[in-house]
């Protein structure tokens, strides 16, 4: 009776090709699965700002008596989607122009050229940008300089004697307020 031959070692090159590479393929497959499953939350987390990017909400600016007819005033509102650690950056400045007792224009302070804060000069009725010299008329339309368009305007509403605006997004050419 012939003695039983010892079991061949696992990495024996005499083994048929499919069996030798089996565990490696299982390993690669499992790793790919783990990477695919793991990438779902990672990508979702990284891309999460896109879900809130277009979110606007109505915010109270103040009683109508704060905005005299015929004047343009600088005011601020709190960003509707602020966090407790935002500090002063939770505040958003804007210009309110009361054209008539029931007609308003609410301008973003950001120049439409590159976003610098424009300043209001009531004497000449102009907004001037300190960065590259863009100028706008009192109704927000472009007067001169590099801006490609007039000032960004927020939607507004009068509710029970108070002025509200629809804000919450930094106005740019891609997402005008």
């Amino acid at each position, binding site marked *: 009776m012939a003695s039983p031959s010892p079991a061949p070692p696992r990495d024996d090159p005499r083994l048929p090709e499919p069996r030798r590479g089996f565990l490696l393929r299982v390993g690669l497959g499992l790793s790919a699965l783990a990477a695919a499953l793991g990438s779902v939350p990672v990508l979702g987390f990284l891309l999460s*700002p896109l879900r809130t*990017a277009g979110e606007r909400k109505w915010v109270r600016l103040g009683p109508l008596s704060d905005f005299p007819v015929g004047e343009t005033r600088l005011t601020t509102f709190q960003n509707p989607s602020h966090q407790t650690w935002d500090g*002063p950056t939770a505040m958003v400045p804007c210009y309110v122009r009361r054209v008539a007792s029931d007609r308003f224009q609410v301008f973003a302070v950001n120049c439409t050229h590159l976003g610098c*804060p424009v300043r209001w000069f009531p004497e*000449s009725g*102009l907004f001037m940008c300190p960065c590259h010299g863009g100028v706008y008329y009192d109704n927000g339309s472009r007067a*001169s300089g590099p801006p490609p368009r007039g000032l960004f305007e927020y939607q507004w509403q009068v509710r029970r004697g108070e002025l509200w605006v629809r804000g919450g997004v*930094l106005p740019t*050419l891609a997402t005008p307020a």
Partner: protein
Amino acid sequence: MARWLSRVGKIGTWLDARLQVGGTIRDTMAHPVPRDTASWFYVFGSATFVIMVLQFVTGILLAMVYVPTPGEAWQSLQALNGQIAFGWFLRAVHGWGSNFMVALLLIHMTQVFLFGAFKYPRELTWMIGVGLLLLTLGMAFTGQIMRFDADAYWGLGIGASMMGRVPFVGSWLVGLLLGGPIVAGQTLSRFFTFHVFVVPGLLIGAALVHVLLVVKVGINDWPMPGRLVNRKTYLARYKRLLHEDGVQFVPDAFQRDLVFSALIILAVLVCAAVFGPFGPSGRPDPRMIDIAPKPDVFFLWLYAALALLPAELETALILIVPVVAIAVLLLLPFISGTGEKSWKRRPFAVLVVVLLASGFIALTWLGLQPPWSPSMTAWSGTPLPPRLLKERTPLELQGALVFQNKQCRNCHALGGTGGDRGPPLDNVAVHLTRDQLIRQVLQGSGEMPAYGDHLHPAEVAALVSYLETLHPPYQPAARVSAASSGSSP
């Protein structure tokens, strides 16, 4: 002493028996380099690397105190500047180190470009170097945001405005840049992540591969005019050069790197001690809008270009030029991978360097004293010289008041003071007739607002009668010619 030394030696031997790096270090130190390259022209890359390490050290120390939230970042910078021992100095070293690192990297890049080091077989070394340039500029820009002051806050808005110009996906890019719909807490947190984890990680990895390639492929031999690079013969010739006229990297070449790097570190320390830290400037409070945000010195050229270019070219400059520029830099070794290396026989390469450098310097200079920005307080705070007011009628003086009160001075200088946005008006009456002045005031032009709706006719009359007096005594005011005055309505 001797016994102590031998004990240290024994520990070293024990460690190296396990780490097995001693041989590699010895080989690297002793590897031959061409004798010509032991030169003061070859010290800029190593100095950039040393400054990078200095930035890592000072950055880690600053991160021990810095608070990356918009509510507290500014205060923590103030505490570093004023309360914590040597905090101001470490901030200054980090800020000056940043400027030195960008400057050295640009000098290093210019040198290897002029010496043809990007040619075969060092294409990949150059391409990784281009990546290092972008990463370093990324560190400089995100670092400017870490100094979270008013400039940083509005600078983020400017970055978002640039992203907003990208067609179709602009709003997504703005959202990803800011981490939300506006510049706020999540924006600073993500810039902190980029400045402290992501970009430095990539930077150190890429820098090590860059250095490894320099050692493995060999440092670029000194370019000789007429000695052309040929893919078939270059490697053998380089090997022969090392054999026939090579020196050991340490100490022959290394000693110059050592001296120069030490001098650079000393220069950073001196600048930090003498000039102190950068900012922070005003609080990052959006409610304070009396500010003219400006970028740091290495981005001033872009700020200037964006003011001076015609509006229709701007989006192209912002979106297309960087892509093309990076592509050209990356493809350079494939456009011109062989042939002449010496700058003495590459006039086009020298011309490109001269043009880019002079453009960079000119735009930066303009950015320091921006003539295109209105002088926001000239109308209220700048006096008129008496000679521009003497012997004027009451109506003309009234016009001078209109000139000041309607902010004309913000853009137009009088008597050498005021804005530079528009032309100075000291001699305006020589160039424009009364009718032309009225037309210019009422209708404006592409570069000047029309004041038609904002001036009473009486104000226009006063303003124009004042402007008509603005001519030198020896030169009369412009007049309508007899022929055209007859036909004018």
